[in-house]
């Protein structure tokens, strides 16, 4: 199998195929960086266009876009607090405060290096470990996936923000939104109000763009939004190569977040945003100064960006071997494979090794290219864009938001829906309801429900099935550990304090 890997290399190195990756990365960074446009949208627009193209050219572009967009999404997340992609939500937690402190350039450098590292790890895992990891994926039936979703939900606790009540309302709202559409088990309709467009549920991009991109655009036009373009526009960057040695102290976060990203990637349906939330959480938990997080801790940016890129190639492991994509973007990319007659499954590796392994190489190249293309060049030019006069920037974002949402399914309905979420988002923002729990609730709510119900069906209604497999038991143990650990440590601390006092 590793022989195939070497054999596939020459065709990848041909000029056309390399160029495809370069174009893809640049396009991906742009798409990610422009508020409103997402990787999902970019690849779904690209797919019909690639029909009749050489497969490696098409796939190379997609690999580039995927990697590029995962980093590109961090640019507006840092500079404007508008996550360019769903997975960049966690990046904005610390990235935006850094930009406010005039350290936006450093935040972006951390983001690009972390993204590239995550992407490289992910590509190597895809190249070297795809078949064994596909076996790991198979261990996760509905029961186990349900527990993973619950594990992800435990992160909500840390996202609630200062006001627990409002945080919980946000989370409940997110879960509720995830339930709109046809019930995945019976097909019974929930809150579709007779609209066919709602039957498949609400696309995360529609919600995200509405909640995160529209309110700032309104704020820009209101001319009151508190971002200081004077400050965030000037990035004060040193050369990225000089900045890297200073980042080496994040190595633990890089390693941990890469593992989390890869793990979440190989699970069907979870996605990059869950990877980013989880790894942000774990990094904060491991940190010596958790109270600094959310106020401009570069390690938070590193954690989020490493794992959302570590998720990219890993998400293709179940997609290529089993036909079950690990993320929404991977799902669209699977369409890109099918359109070239590449059916996922073990036969794919046997029948078309030069394409499959070539595709893996392209992922690796795309990740490496990120440092060169995503560094000074792209970052600085986008910082320039953000220096545009505010009313102009606001108008442009409104138009971009339209394009981004319309192009996913080519229909106006999604645009109207997005506008509705935009209004809700505007008021939530003003009333200090935290937005991240909404996103997490939407990602995990329906997902957890579906798998729980599938598990119960398999178990014939017996709740005991939830703890029946060894994998499930391990997961339950992990959840208990994560939820109870902070309680214990707090208890110990207060007891110690009592002893000191007494």
């Amino acid at each position: 199998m590793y022989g195939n890997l070497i054999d596939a290399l020459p065709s990848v190195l041909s000029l056309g195929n390399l160029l495809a990756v370069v174009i893809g990365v640049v396009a991906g960074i742009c798409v990610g960086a422009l508020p409103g446009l997402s990787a999902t949208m970019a690849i779904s627009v690209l797919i019909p266009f690639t029909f009749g193209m050489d497969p490696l050219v098409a796939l190379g572009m997609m690999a580039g876009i995927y990697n590029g967009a995962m980093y590109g999404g961090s640019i507006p997340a840092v500079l404007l607090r508008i996550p360019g992609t769903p997975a960049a939500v966690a990046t904005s937690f610390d990235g935006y405060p850094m930009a406010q402190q005039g350290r936006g350039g450093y935040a972006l450098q951390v983001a690009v290096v972390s993204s590239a590292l995550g992407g490289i790890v992910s590509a190597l895992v895809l190249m070297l470990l795809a078949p064994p990891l596909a076996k790991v994926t198979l261990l996760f039936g509905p029961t186990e996936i349900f527990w993973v979703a619950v594990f992800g939900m435990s992160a909500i606790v840390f996202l609630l923000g200062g006001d627990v009540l409002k945080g919980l309302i946000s989370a409940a709202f997110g879960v509720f939104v995830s339930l709109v559409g046809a019930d995945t088990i019976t097909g019974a309709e929930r809150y579709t109000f007779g609209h066919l467009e709602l039957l498949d549920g609400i696309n995360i991009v529609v919600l995200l763009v509405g909640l995160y991109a529209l309110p700032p655009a309104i704020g820009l036009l209101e001319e009151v939004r508190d971002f200081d373009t004077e400050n965030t526009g000037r990035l004060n960057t040193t050369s990225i190569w000089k900045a890297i040695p200073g980042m080496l102290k994040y190595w633990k976060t890089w390693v941990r977040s890469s593992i989390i990203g890869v793990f979440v990637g190989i699970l069907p349906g979870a996605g990059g945003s869950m990877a980013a939330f989880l790894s942000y959480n774990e990094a904060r938990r491991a940190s010596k100064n958790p109270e600094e997080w959310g106020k401009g801790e570069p390690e938070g940016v590193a954690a989020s960006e490493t794992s959302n890129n570590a998720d990219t190639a890993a998400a293709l492991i179940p997609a290529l071997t089993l036909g079950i994509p690990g993320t929404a973007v991977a799902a669209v990319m699977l369409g890109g494979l099918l359109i070239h007659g590449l059916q996922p499954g073990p036969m794919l590796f046997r029948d078309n090794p030069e394409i499959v392994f070539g595709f893996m190489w392209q992922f690796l190249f795309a990740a490496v290219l990120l440092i060169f293309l995503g560094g000074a060049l792209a970052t600085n030019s986008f910082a320039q864009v953000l220096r545009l006069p505010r009313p102009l920037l606001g108008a442009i974002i409104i138009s971009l938001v339209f394009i981004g949402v319309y192009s996913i399914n080519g229909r106006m309905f999604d645009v109207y829906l997005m506008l509705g979420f935009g209004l809700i988002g505007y008021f939530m923002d003003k009333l200090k309801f935290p937005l991240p729990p909404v996103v997490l609730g939407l990602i995990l709510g329906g997902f957890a429900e579906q798998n729980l119900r599938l598990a119960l069906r398999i178990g014939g209604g017996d709740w005991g099935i939830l703890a029946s497999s060894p994998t499930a038991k391990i997961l339950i143990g992990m959840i208990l550990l994560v939820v109870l650990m902070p309680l214990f440590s707090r208890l110990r601390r207060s007891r110690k304090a009592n002893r000191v006092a007494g």
Partner: protein
Amino acid sequence: MGFKSIAIATALILSSSMSTAALADYPEKRIDMIVGFAAGGGTDVMARTIGPYLEKYLGNDTSVVVKNMPGASGQIGVTAVAEARPDGYTIGTYNLPGTMARTLDRDADYDADSFTYLANVVNDPNVIVTPKNSDIDTMDKLVEAAQKRPGAVTVAMSSLGGDDHFFLQKLSDVTDADYTVVPFSGSAPARSALMGGHVTMGIINVSEVVAFRDELNVLGIASEERSSLADDIPTFKEQGVDLVNGALRGFVAPANLPDNVKAKLLDAFQKTYDDPDFQQAMRRSGNPTELALGDDFKSLNAEQLELAKRIWETHPWK
């Protein structure tokens, strides 16, 4: 939705004045082929594969452009076809039994009379699969297990109200046993759950199993004759179980298509189907072909609707 209807009305007025004149020279402009799924799905690949052949056999240097209108498992696209003007410049993909089943379990803005049936091109028979390490590796063992304890056999499939669900209902009738349905919203997740041994058996289509022959036991195929995609899989009929069922994919136009346009389209579909290059392209994309043209397709549709009705009345799934 006010804007939309005004927009549609304007579009209708503008275009109706232009194209009533000459239907004789059909086609004289581009033909939109509406696909109810996102680019890259099985139906989409079929549409894009057939497009160039239709262009070739319709002549007049026409172009066939695929338009994806995904959503509601194809219903949005098929509704758009039903509501389009019957001039031959809008045709669309059509999936059975799903499209007809939706007229029963949902409010649909179309019914069996809303279409001119052109050609059904793909017939993808159902197969029963079990995990590789399962003891149940023949139909006899499966039936025995299902009859021993009602509901003990869990069946992974893609969704309720689809071909796999109807097949299970037939199986349940024929074998006189109860099964527990586990709908995974997609064949690939169902297949993976099966490979991981989380369910007892699965019902998918033959095109979805050919790449996984080493990982799964295939107990039989629900077609009259063995499939050319995998001719070592015995049919259920050979095994003495009368089961024939599958997913059908074809093309329709809005109802009341002018006769000359219909004739021209049917002719083009027939010629496309007879083209060996087309057959090879379909095989490469994993689509088992079987042609039912015009009235044959219409009666096939009626048959499928009848089946869906029977099951909906006896075992409503929601």
